Structure formats: structure tokens, C-alpha cells
């Protein structure tokens, strides 16, 4: 048998049909659904008189539109948002799919609760009408975002029409230095490859520094595979994966657990597998990074300066000029001198318990800079509950952060959590696009620890200066 990558193996295990021209029909094990990209799909299904083929493999949760204020039980003020969430309520109940309503403590961001509830397992195919579905690749599951027409297609057929992608290996060797996190890895990879560098590929992340990451860190890395243009990101499952999965509500148990484990252990790329593209980065070379522009590829170590547009080439020169104007930054300014107005800790990239622990470790005994708005939005109700139990919530509250309910919140600002024009935000989310966090809002992406450090000083900050034992 010819050697295969992990992607090849999962693909082969889910291939329903392959046409002569290479168009494939792939079986989907888990279909995650949220309120923004699904109403038209359910409507389409109804209009055609079709039904949901596999309600048991379909999991829905409202996350994008939901308010994250403590008093959200009183309802959603914005009429359109409310209608969209109500549509998901109705569609979920009518079709009998699994559903976590806003009132359920397990509600949260779809990509946080899928793994949390054990819906996401190694070797699965997972799709969702959301580009950050790539997150689930951390389990060695082939997971990617789809459009609403494809949501309808999966609802009706439990399959997806696909063309196979190419294989790309991203290896992070060695160890990370203190203060450097999974977020810094994933931003550094995108800075290296560009936002289109992964287009046409599925990325497998490997190497010692990846192996050393917790599942939370691996999810952060895979989450942003899409920002590098890749269809999906993957990390081969190992003991860390099995330990995370074991005992979760929807994880296999007993004899089925053993059978699953036997198969999961085969889920790794063969030593002599073919890679169409390879990128290698030394873990020791990765610094805490922040973005300065309006594309996730615009990332630099915090010790750097805002770059000059003329140092780029091609279409990027004009793009950087535009970005600096939008961001209100001048070339040559030290990134550490850039003042901020807002801090947002949360999102499917960095809204998990480990992220909150990392931020709280920096904030303990400190205060948010006067005049700054700072909020923590846990990725799920269960993350929130755990953080309260661990005393993290109190650290955030004592530091002057708002302690919110679970949702996507200011990552994309579909709910009331938005930036005003010109406001500058240190954010742990995934996109710094123009207008992403509110029209005219300016976003700097970074790790939770870096965002916490920025909250304390009121400017973009090297977290290593604030660590209990400063490392520089």
C-alpha cells in the first residue's frame, strides 16, 4: 500500500463515491449548526420537501447573536438577532437534532462545545457553516467550514461534494520559550506562509512543540488554519487527545472506547508519506506576536516596529498603505508604544479554560489601566462555571474586567459587543479585518496572556515584562 498522510487516511475512510473526474462524495460524521448560516438551509429543505437525514449526527447551538450580558435571560433586544435565534430554536425542535439553547448551561461557541461535549472525536469528518470549524482538527478530525448551500446539502444527504486537497506539513520543532503560546505559533505560521499560503491544502501540524501543547492549545493552532487559507488543519491524536476525550458525555465508553482507541492509534501520517509543501519553524524562534494590520498575516514579534509599506512588494504595498491608514499607525512606531482602548478575551480561538488561566495568571493582583474597557467572554457556560470554581472569575472581576456569559461576542460583533469607530482593541480572536469588531474598529490579535498584559499597561505590551519571574 502506498504511504498515506493522516488526511489521506481520514479521507479514504469517508469516501462514499468517486466520479471519473475526481469529484468525490464524502460522508460527514458530525454536522454542527449555528443560527447565522443555517436558516436559509432549513428553509431550502422545507421548500423541497426534504428532511434531515441524520438528526443524531447534527448538533445546533446559537452563539453569534446571543447577548453575553448577565441579564440575557430577558431576551434579545435586536429584532433581527432575535428572529434568527428563534428560527434556530424552531428548526432544531422540528427536525429533532441535538440542541443547546441559550438557557442551557452547556451553551457556548459551537467550536468550543463540540469538543467539550465529546461530539468531536479523532478520525471523524466534521463540518459547520463556519470557517473556524478547522478548530476540531486538533483531535485528528477532518474539519472544515462550509457555505449555507452545503449546510443544506449535508442536512439532506449527510455527505458533501468535495475535491481532494493537497497535503501540507507544518512542523514546529523544539520548545517554546516562556511567554510564547499556541496563539503565537499559529500567527507566526500565517505570517510566514501568508493568508493564501494554505489555499488548496490541508495542513498537518506536527513537531515537538505541537506535541507538547494541551488540547486547548492545539485547538487554538488548528482554529486559525483557515486564516492561512487552508481547507483544514490537523494534529494527529495521541495520549493528550485520548485523555481529553475520555469520559466526555458523547465519547465512546467501555468496549466501544477500546475499539475506538485501536483505530485512533492508526491515525497518523506514514513516515514516508508524500507532502506537497513543507514549512518548518523552530519553536525557539517564535516570540510573542501581535498583528499590526488588517490581515492575520500582518503579525510581528511585539519587540518589532510598524513596517513600512515600501518594504513589501506587489499588491501588498497598496494593501499595507491602506491597512496603516485604517489602523491609524505610522511606519517605524514601536508596537509596544501603541495605546489601546479595549481588551477582548474570548472567541473560538482563545475562549477555553486554559486561555482564561493564562490571562488570569498575568492579572492576579493587578488592575486594568484606568479608562480601559476590558471584557472576558468564556467560550461556553461550562468554561465559565469552571473558571468561577477555580477562582479565575474573581481575578478578572477584581482586576476590572467584565465577566460575561458565553458567546462569540466581540470577535465578530454581531451582538451588542462592538468597537466604536477608531477604537483600538487588544483581542484574542482570529480576525483583524476592517470593520470586523465594529465599523472603523481597530483590532490587534494576540494571545490571552498578551491581551491581559495590554489591559494592565493600556498599550500593546510584551507579556514577558509582566510575568511573575520576568524573562527579559
Amino acid at each position, binding site marked *: 500500500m502506498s504511504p498515506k498522510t493522516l488526511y489521506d487516511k481520514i479521507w479514504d*475512510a*469517508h469516501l*462514499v463515491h468517486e*466520479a471519473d*473526474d475526481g*469529484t468525490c*462524495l464524502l*460522508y460527514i*460524521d458530525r454536522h454542527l449548526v449555528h443560527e*447565522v*448560516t443555517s*436558516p*436559509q438551509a432549513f*428553509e431550502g429543505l422545507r421548500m423541497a420537501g*426534504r428532511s434531515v437525514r441524520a438528526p443524531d*449526527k447534527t448538533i445546533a447551538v446559537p452563539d*453569534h*447573536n446571543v447577548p453575553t450580558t448577565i441579564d440575557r435571560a430577558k431576551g434579545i433586544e435586536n429584532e*433581527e*438577532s432575535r*428572529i*434568527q435565534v428563534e428560527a434556530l430554536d424552531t428548526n432544531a425542535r422540528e427536525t429533532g437534532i441535538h440542541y443547546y439553547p441559550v438557557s442551557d448551561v452547556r451553551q457556548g461557541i459551537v467550536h468550543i462545545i463540540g469538543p467539550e461535549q465529546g461530539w468531536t472525536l479523532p478520525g471523524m469528518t466534521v463540518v459547520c457553516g*463556519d*470557517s473556524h470549524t478547522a478548530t476540531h482538527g486538533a483531535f485528528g478530525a477532518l474539519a*472544515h467550514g*462550509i*457555505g*449555507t*448551500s*452545503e449546510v*443544506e*446539502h449535508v442536512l*439532506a*444527504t*449527510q*455527505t458533501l*461534494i468535495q475535491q481532494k486537497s493537497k497535503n501540507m506539513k507544518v512542523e514546529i520543532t523544539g520548545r517554546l520559550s516562556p511567554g510564547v503560546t499556541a496563539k503565537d505559533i499559529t500567527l507566526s505560521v500565517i505570517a510566514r506562509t501568508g493568508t*493564501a499560503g494554505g*489555499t488548496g491544502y490541508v495542513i498537518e501540524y506536527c513537531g515537538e512543540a505541537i506535541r507538547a501543547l494541551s488540547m486547548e492549545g492545539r485547538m487554538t493552532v488548528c482554529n486559525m488554519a483557515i*486564516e492561512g*487559507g487552508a*481547507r483544514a488543519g490537523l494534529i494527529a491524536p495521541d495520549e493528550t487527545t485520548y485523555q481529553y476525550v475520555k469520559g466526555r458525555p458523547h465519547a465512546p465508553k467501555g468496549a466501544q*472506547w477500546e*475499539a*475506538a482507541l485501536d*483505530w485512533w492509534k492508526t491515525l497518523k501520517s506514514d513516515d514516508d508519506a508524500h507532502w506537497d509543501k513543507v514549512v518548518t519553524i523552530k519553536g525557539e524562534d517564535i516570540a510573542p506576536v501581535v498583528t499590526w494590520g488588517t*490581515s492575520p498575516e500582518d503579525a510581528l514579534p511585539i519587540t518589532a516596529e510598524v513596517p513600512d509599506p515600501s518594504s513589501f512588494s*506587489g*499588491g501588498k504595498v*497598496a494593501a499595507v498603505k491602506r491597512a496603516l491608514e485604517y489602523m491609524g499607525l505610522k511606519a517605524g512606531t514601536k508596537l509596544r508604544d501603541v495605546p489601546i482602548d479595549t481588551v477582548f478575551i474570548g472567541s473560538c480561538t482563545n475562549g477555553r479554560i486554559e486561555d482564561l488561566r493564562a490571562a488570569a495568571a498575568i492579572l492576579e493582583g493587578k488592575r486594568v489601566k484606568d479608562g480601559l474597557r476590558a471584557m472576558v467572554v468564556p467560550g461556553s457556560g461550562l468554561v465559565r462555571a469552571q473558571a468561577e470554581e477555580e477562582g479565575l472569575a474573581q481575578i478578572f472581576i477584581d482586576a476590572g474586567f467584565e465577566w460575561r456569559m458565553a458567546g462569540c461576542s466581540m470577535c*465578530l460583533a*454581531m451582538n451588542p459587543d462592538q468597537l466604536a*469607530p477608531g477604537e483600538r482593541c487588544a483581542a484574542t480572536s482570529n*480576525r483583524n*479585518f*476592517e*470593520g*470586523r469588531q465594529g*465599523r*472603523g474598529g481597530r483590532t490587534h490579535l494576540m494571545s490571552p496572556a498578551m491581551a491581559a498584559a495590554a489591559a494592565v499597561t493600556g498599550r500593546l505590551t510584551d507579556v514577558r515584562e509582566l510575568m511573575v519571574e520576568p524573562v527579559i
Partner: protein
Amino acid sequence: MEKFEKLTGVAAPLPLINIDTDMIIPKQFLKTIKRSGLGVNLFDEMRYNDDGTENENFVLNKPAYRDAEILVTGDNFGCGSSREHAPWAIKDFGIRCVIAPGFADIFFNNCFKNGILPIALPQEQVDRLMDDAEKGANARMEIDLENQTITMSDGETVAFEVDSFRKHCLLEGLDDIGLTLEKASAIDSFEASASQARPWV
């Protein structure tokens, strides 16, 4: 789905790289539960000033391009969010073909599901088409999907590639779900064997 065979229309130049789907259709317009009506908000933040008036410098607000049916743009068009509202907005505006050096994966897929033809061409060919599009209302291009050619306003022709299955679906206006349901027995038998092999799924 609406068929795509031949299209003759004005091409609008938008020479920016990395145009993301947040720029194509900002989030406040994702709250709809319909597919239609998004054209008026296409490129909303570039197209309108803060007070809601039109930004007269934006290409689609210029008299020559208000009825553009083709868009010529920069690399990595449609990156970011998977929102199909992006192609819905493009189509609702009246654009049926987007030409760029490259497209983001999900956006590219979404176009074909909505009767929009995305054409990827080498940068130097896009540059020539961009120059042609800059000519204004006289820059009428003809897109011929059957023969896979773009004819510029001066009669010069550029060939393009397109996946054969997707071409077939566009030319015939085929519904993917209907096509897949013809393979229901293959799905049934896959499901049966997969539930034996991986009962925990």
C-alpha cells in the same frame, strides 16, 4: 439554480488583494433569514460613507460601473468567513462573474452553488483584464463558459480553466442535492458498513 452559459457585461476593476468576506458583506447584514436583498449592502463599508451617503470614489458608485456584471479583482478574494451571504450579495447586485489571481477556498465553492462563475487566472492576465476594465462603461467583456474564454473589449481572447463537474452544473443550472440524492443507495451502504466499522460514531 440559475444557469450560467454566456455573459456579456461591464467589468468593474477593484484592484485590492485579500478582500475578505467581512468587506464583501459586513456582519450586520448576516442577520437575515433570506438569501435575497443583500445587493444594496455589497461592499457596504467601502461603498457608503459614515452618514450613509454613497462614497463617490468607490468603483461600483461610478456611473460607468453601476450596472457591472463582472468584477476584476486582486488575489485571495473572498478570504475569511464562510458566509454565503458574500456570493448572495454579489449576485443580488447583479455580478455573475468574478475574475482574480486566486480565491479563498470556501468562497470559491460557494460561488458555484449560486450560479456565479469565479475565474482564477495568472496575475499578468488579470492585470490585462484590469486595464480593460479601467476603460469604463465601454469595457464590455464576454464570458463564454462552454468554450472557457473571456473576450475583452478590443476582441482579444483569454482562455480559462474550470472544473468539469462544476462547469456542467453551472451550464445546466443543476441542483447539487438532487444529484447527490441519486446516489442514495451508495450513501446507505456506506452508512451500513461504517456503522459496523466505527459503531461509536
